[in-house]
């Protein structure tokens, strides 16, 4: 470290006044925040502008406020967007339910139950997290085609009940490991079986991780575009994402207002969840390295 001080240039050695650094940091962060949020704010504000004002001004505050674009967009396709939102909602809620049930069961087996092959299956489960879904995509599709499930929501929902999102198992395993074993042992002494311990001890103590898994699995399913694109053909069965994409084609960019209005609506649920569960989401990412 002595040698470190010796090589310092005078510039480096001079400590900047704290107030100035602070002011600079704030300025940088504020500018950055503006850049980050501008596209989103622009999308929202443009959706309330009359069509001819969207491109004439970059201003975020509409001169004339109108919800007309929402009316045009809502009924812009042969099926109302409301219907597609309902489809998305049903699929996302079922995905949440499926993930919570199947992943918590698997995580419970991996952390609390003694059975032959436990370590082997656990290693395989971790392995599946690494395998890109493209490797299994086509045979899965052919299988669902055989079952007559294509153009139904089953291929989007049933896999969630079979713990396909191994990531959530991993997340719950981490959490369950932190629950003191003394609790199960005490319950075991009182004659409780594995089922009772799962429902009466593990699950009630796991609400934080269950909530994290629920919110993320809702958002990911809501956002998902690839699976609905492959499996859903009829416009009555479309999710909001598919509807929006069809709308891009249909309007051929002639009605930007309506397109931006519907875009705003598809992002709205995610935004609401973000506002409600911000802490939970950020902690989820920070502690597990969850991506997105």
């Amino acid at each position: 470290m002595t040698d470190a001080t010796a090589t310092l240039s005078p510039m480096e050695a001079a400590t900047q006044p704290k107030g100035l650094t602070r002011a600079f940091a704030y300025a940088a962060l504020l500018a950055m925040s503006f850049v980050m949020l501008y596209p989103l704010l622009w999308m929202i504000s443009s959706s309330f502008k009359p069509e001819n004002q969207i491109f004439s001004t970059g201003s975020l505050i509409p001169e004339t406020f109108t919800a007309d674009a929402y009316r045009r967009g809502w009924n812009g396709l042969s099926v109302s967007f409301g219907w597609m939102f309902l489809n998305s909602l049903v699929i996302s809620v079922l995905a949440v339910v499926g993930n919570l049930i199947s992943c918590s069961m698997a995580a419970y087996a991996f952390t609390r139950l003694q059975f032959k092959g436990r370590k082997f299956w656990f290693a395989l489960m971790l392995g599946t997290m690494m395998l890109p879904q493209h490797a299994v995509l086509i045979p899965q599709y052919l299988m669902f085609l055989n079952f007559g499930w294509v153009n139904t929501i089953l291929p989007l929902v049933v896999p969630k009940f079979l713990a396909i999102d191994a990531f959530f198992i991993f997340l719950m395993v981490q959490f369950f490991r932190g629950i003191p074993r003394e609790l199960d042992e005490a319950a075991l002494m009182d004659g409780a079986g594995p089922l009772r311990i799962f429902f009466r001890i593990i699950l009630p103590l796991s609400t934080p991780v269950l909530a994290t898994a629920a919110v993320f699995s809702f958002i990911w399913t809501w956002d998902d575009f690839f699976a609905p694109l492959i499996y859903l053909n009829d416009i009555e069965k479309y999710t909001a994402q598919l509807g929006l994409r069809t709308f891009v084609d249909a309007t051929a960019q002639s009605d930007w207002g309506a397109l931006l209005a519907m875009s705003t609506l598809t992002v709205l649920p995610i935004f609401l969840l973000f506002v409600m569960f911000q802490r939970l989401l950020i902690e989820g990412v920070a502690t597990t390295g969850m991506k997105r």
Partner: protein
Amino acid sequence: MAVDETLHYRAPVWSRLRGQLAGYGFLSPWLIGFFALTFGPAVSSLYLSLTDYSLMSSPRWVGAGNYVQIAQVDPRFRAAMNVTFTYVLLSVPLKLIFALAIAVLLNKGLKGLNWFRAIFYLPSLIGGPVAIAVLWRQVFASDGIINQVLMSVFGYEGPSWIANPDTAIYTLVALAVWQFGSSMIIFLAGLRQIPQDMYEAASIDGASRTRQFFKITLPLLTPVIFFNAVILTIDAFKAFTPAFVISDGSGGPIDSTLFYTLYLYQEAFMNFRFGYASALAWVLVAIIAGFTALSFFSAKYWVHYDD
């Protein structure tokens, strides 16, 4: 008394069996899923990758034919590789740099940390649904936000970035970089782990802020950088939706946004070449596995683990 003895003898067996039953009972949804949705399909797609199959007739064995065609003849594969590697090699480092720089700035104990953190995280939470791709299409369109800024600030009339094959891919890189938030949060968590007294000791020794960053922060953060880099790289190879929406599913203009997964999708679900698409899928798996292996191998030389 004989009754008691048999009970005594049977109890452990029954409870052991019960343990096995409970274990496999709770694991059964995952087990069924593993065999039906992962293991079975993986084996089956390996087989399909060695065949010619289009739903019209049963799979016809072609051996390594598909792989040979991919490696030697297919120009669109080459285009897809070009686009995908450009995307990965640009978006991942840029995202890491942004995420790290902002995290370091936020870690200075400024007020309003929670607000800034939330604002920067929002774009990456929203992720890549269609709405964002639609928005991006507008942002970089000929009359979009970027060109409006260029016009009013520099008086420069910008092109349509998305319609131009030379620039289209960079709009997608910009989209990826805009979503640096989750990496930033992981960096912030990592920065908190660095003991404060290391900085105190260093400043007593007269080390400047810059030097402290390169000698303390950066080395101690290498495990987190490594983790982020690996995850971001894997994700970048799998990117799909933005390219699909921006190019109307074509990968255009002139295949300039033909992401690997988009090409795979076209071969499988537009051209119904299931055998060839399966081979493409396994090539992607191999590339991702190769990249991951390379990262882990290189980690020995630059990732600092305190033991």
